[in-house]
Each structure stands twice: as C-alpha cells, then as structure tokens.
C-alpha cells in the first residue's frame, strides 16, 4: 500500500462519519465529539497503514537492488549496455523516431474513428432481428468471427503485400493506407464485440418501455439502447484504443516510415539496438496517459454505479 492510498482511506472514513453526523445533526443540535473508541480505532488504523507502507517501500527497494545486481553482474552486461543503452545512439535516434511517431499518431486518429464507426455498424447489424436481415446478420457474424481469429500480423501481410500483387487499377499501393486498412479490419471486429456486449447488457425492460411508447425498433435502438450501451463500454473501448495505438507500429513491416521503422533504419545502419529501445519507450510514454485516462473513466463509472460500500 502506498502512502497516498493510506491518506485517501482515512479521509473516506472521515467523510462517511461526517455524513452520518450531518443527518443526525439535522434533527437536533450538532454537538458531536469523537468518542474514545473512535479515536483508538483510528489510531490503530493509522499505525497499520504506516506499517503497510513501510513494508511496501522496503520490498520495492530490495527488489530493485536485486534486479540491479543481477543485471549489471551478468557476464554480457558490458556488451548489452553498449548495444541497447548507448546514449550516443539514443540521441541520434530520438528525433527520427519522433518524426516517425507523427505517422503513428495520424494512423491512430484516423483508424480509431474508422474502427469505432465500423465496429458499431457491425454490432448493430448483428443484433437486427427478423428474417429479412438474415444476410446482414450472417455477414456481420462471419466478419467478426474471421477477423477476430486472424492474427493481426497475418492480416497486415495479406493486405499490404496481397492487394498490390493484384495490380488492380485505381487501388492504392501506399503501405500506410494498406496498413491502416488492415488495422481497421482487425480492430473493428474486436470493437464490434465490445459494442455488442454493451447492447445486450441493456435490460429488455428498457426496450419494452420504449416500444410501449410507440417507438419503432430503429428509434428504440437510437434513443434508448445505444446511448446506454455505449456509455457502459467506454472503458473496454478505450482499452482497445490503447492497444491500437501501439499496434500502429506494425505498419513498419510494410515499409511505412513510422517510429519503429525509423528506429530500424538506424539500427540496421550501425548494428546497434538502442533506437528500438528508444522507440519502445516512446510508445510506452504515449500509452501511459491513455491508460491512466481509461482507469480514471472506469473508476468514475464504478463509483457512480456502486452506491456506498467500502469493500
């Protein structure tokens, strides 16, 4: 347990108690003083929290020292440090990698929008009822089954090298466009399943209420089901977007000069892997804010749903 957790926990407890006091106080006079029992209880909790923090700090320190000793003490450490952690190559690679990263960000933005739209469309298609929609439903199901199972790297290779091989008139051979298409194909299948789970989580009574008001099934979907479904799946969707963000690095296999490919060029030229480490760290740095944002949104929604309860 970290010290910030400790502080928050004690504060929450305090707020809970205060809430009760207010309610009592509203009826009569507000002359509450903490009893000896409460003071003793809180003293014990503080001591316990301090102990937990101390244990956590100590174990972190021990783990760090052990890791450091094992790695730096290994027989190949000298060579490894020069090949993977060279400050000189890192300085050389960073600007190129950041240039390439712009492409990754553009891909993320454009593919992200396409993935969300296509995923939503597929999910809605899969929930359509009635025999008329059988072909639509079957196609959407086949699509999600196929692209969810197909490894992304194979999808990329097929699209990026297969489509140009067809030599079709007017079809692009641009590796960025083709790579982006492959990402959209795979990710929209994942996202469609997330949306579908959301749609199915809306209770049937909501649909019944909407239909009983005379709303058609399309309007029920539009005004009642989808708004609730989308809200519920925001955390898993953001999670998929984080994943998409790093997988944009895979378009490098098609020869698009993104952050990974920029690193590869330098690495290949000097036989030094430091640029890969730089590119990797840049991606991590990019996903961390997104992951934290996801955590924050999830926590906020959980808080809103759960009424009280400390466990």
């Amino acid at each position, binding site marked *: 347990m970290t010290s910030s957790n400790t502080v928050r926990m004690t504060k929450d407890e305090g707020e809970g108690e205060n809430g009760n006091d207010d309610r009592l106080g509203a009826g009569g006079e507000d002359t509450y003083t903490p009893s000896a029992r409460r003071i003793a209880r809180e003293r014990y909790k503080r001591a316990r929290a301090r102990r937990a923090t101390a244990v956590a700090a100590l174990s972190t320190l021990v783990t760090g020292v052990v890791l450091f000793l094992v790695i730096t003490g290994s027989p190949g450490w000298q060579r490894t440090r020069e090949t993977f952690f060279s400050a000189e190559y890192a300085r050389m690679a960073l600007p190129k990698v950041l240039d390439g990263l712009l492409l990754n960000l553009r891909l993320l933005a454009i593919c992200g929008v396409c993935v969300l739209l296509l995923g939503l469309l597929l999910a809605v298609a899969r929930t359509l009822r009635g025999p008329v929609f059988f072909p639509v439903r079957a196609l959407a199901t086949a699509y999600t089954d196929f692209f969810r199972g197909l490894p992304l790297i194979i999808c990329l290779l097929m699209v990026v090298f297969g489509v140009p091989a067809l030599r079709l008139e007017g079809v692009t051979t641009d590796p960025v466009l083709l790579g982006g298409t492959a990402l959209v194909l795979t990710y929209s299948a994942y996202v469609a399943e997330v949306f579908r789970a959301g749609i199915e989580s809306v209770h049937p009574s*909501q649909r019944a*209420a909407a*239909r009983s008001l005379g709303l058609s099934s399309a309007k029920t979907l539009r005004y009642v089901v989808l708004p609730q479904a989308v809200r519920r799946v925001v955390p898993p969707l953001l999670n998929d977007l984080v994943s998409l963000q790093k997988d944009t690095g895979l378009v490098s296999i098609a020869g698009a000069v993104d952050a990974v490919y920029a690193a590869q060029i330098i690495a290949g030229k000097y036989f030094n892997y430091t640029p890969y480490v730089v590119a990797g760290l840049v991606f991590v740095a990019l996903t961390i804010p997104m992951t934290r944002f996801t955590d924050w949104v999830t926590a906020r929604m959980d808080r809103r749903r759960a009424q009280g309860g400390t466990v």
Partner: protein
Amino acid sequence: MTADDTRTAADDTRATGGDDGPVLRLESVRKTFGRDRVVLRDVSLDVAPHTVTALIGASGSGKSTLLRCANLLEEIDDGAIFLDGEEITDPRADPDAVRRRIGVVFQSYNLFPHMTVLQNITLAPRRVLGVSREEAEARARELLGRLGLGDKAGEYPDRLSGGQQQRAAIVRALAVRPRLLLLDEITAALDPELVGEVLSVVRDLKADGMTMVLATHEMGFAREVADQVCFLDNGVVLERGTPQEVFGNPRQERTRRFLRRIVEAGRL
C-alpha cells in the same frame, strides 16, 4: 386528470364511432410460453370507455401477460384483441401505431436512466408524434406539476424516490395522450408509505375519465376504484363483476379461497 385528456379521449371515441363500444375487447385469447406453459387459456374481456378494470389473481395467474398481450409486447397464440373495435392482433396492423394509443406503466418503472425526467417524458411525443420540443416540454411540465413533480423535471431517475419514479413513469405514459392506460402492478415495488401517493394519482385519472386496466395486489384499492373486477385463475377469467359482487359475494370456490388468503395476509 385533465380536462383536455378527457376531451381527447372523447374526440377519439367520436372518430371511431360512438361511446358505447368497448375500448378494449379480448376474445378467447390464448397465450402459451414454450410448448406446455399455458398462461392464458381462454380469456374474454370487455373494457368500457372511462371505466377502470382491475385484474386480480395469484402471482403467475397471467395478469401481466394479459397486459403485455394487449400492448402487443407479446404475440398471442389464438383469439383476438380489439382496440376501439379495430382488431390489433391482425398481422397487418402496425404495432407501433397501436402502442402509441395505449399507455403502459410497469411495476419496475422502466424509466430511461440516461435521460432526465423531462427527456423521458418528451421522447415519445417528439420522436413518435413529431411534436415540437417546446410544445412537448410545456405539456410535460404541466403534467409533472399536476402530479407533484414540478421541481423534478431536470433530475435523472435514479435521484428520485420509488414513488416519484413511478409518478414520472405515469406522466411519460400520459404524454402521448393514450386512449387506454395499462398499469402493471405499479405499486408492487414501492414501500407502503409511497404506495398512497401513486394510488391517489390513479384515483385522479379515473375522476378525469381515463380508461384503465390495472393488474394489482392492492385489493382494497381495487375494490375502491374499479368498476369491474376480473379474477384470473389458471388461464381463465374465473369471476368477473362489480367489486361488490366479486369481493362481497364471490360465486366460485376458488375466488373465495383466494380472497380468504388475502384477508389472512392482511391485504384486504
């Protein structure tokens, strides 16, 4: 409740040819779930304009199913249901148009949690009837005011008490000016102290001439407010008559036993 509700109802009646015909008519309705769960065996029922019909009977006797069938939320297996003399169970009938003329209030309110009370109420008038936002909101606020929810228009449903939510659900059902209101055990999920505020709304609606069918376990209320009481048992209307007849002098042994159990449970 409302002078203008009554007026619309009367207008509708004139358009469909007379005040004398029943608003809702069930003819030998049969409904099964799966192969062998017969919920409604052979149910016939007339609901006259501006009257209140109470459906009573044990849990699982088919009260809710009957209401769901009348609103076409369930498809019946046999028989026919008529609204103002027009067969709504005809496969060629447009279910959305039928449901527009029937308001439903559910036991669990079923308000839309992502919308404010006002948005819940104006959804159908705006998106189904095509009423302008201003007009829909003005009417919604007027109805909310009458049901004592004037200050709750901007609240989300989960900020309201059960009784307030159920009253908001009633307003939502009334907002499309239905010809008929179906109330499905609307007090069953409420604390006893909140039951009263919802029932008094129903009382007001009756005074204003709204035609209603209600499934209920509140026998005292059924006795007070209903013009007609139907005792459902084993998929048929076993006994039907005025409250005095059904509660005061039941003809069937099953009805007598049911009412005795109710009295023992302190519910009558």
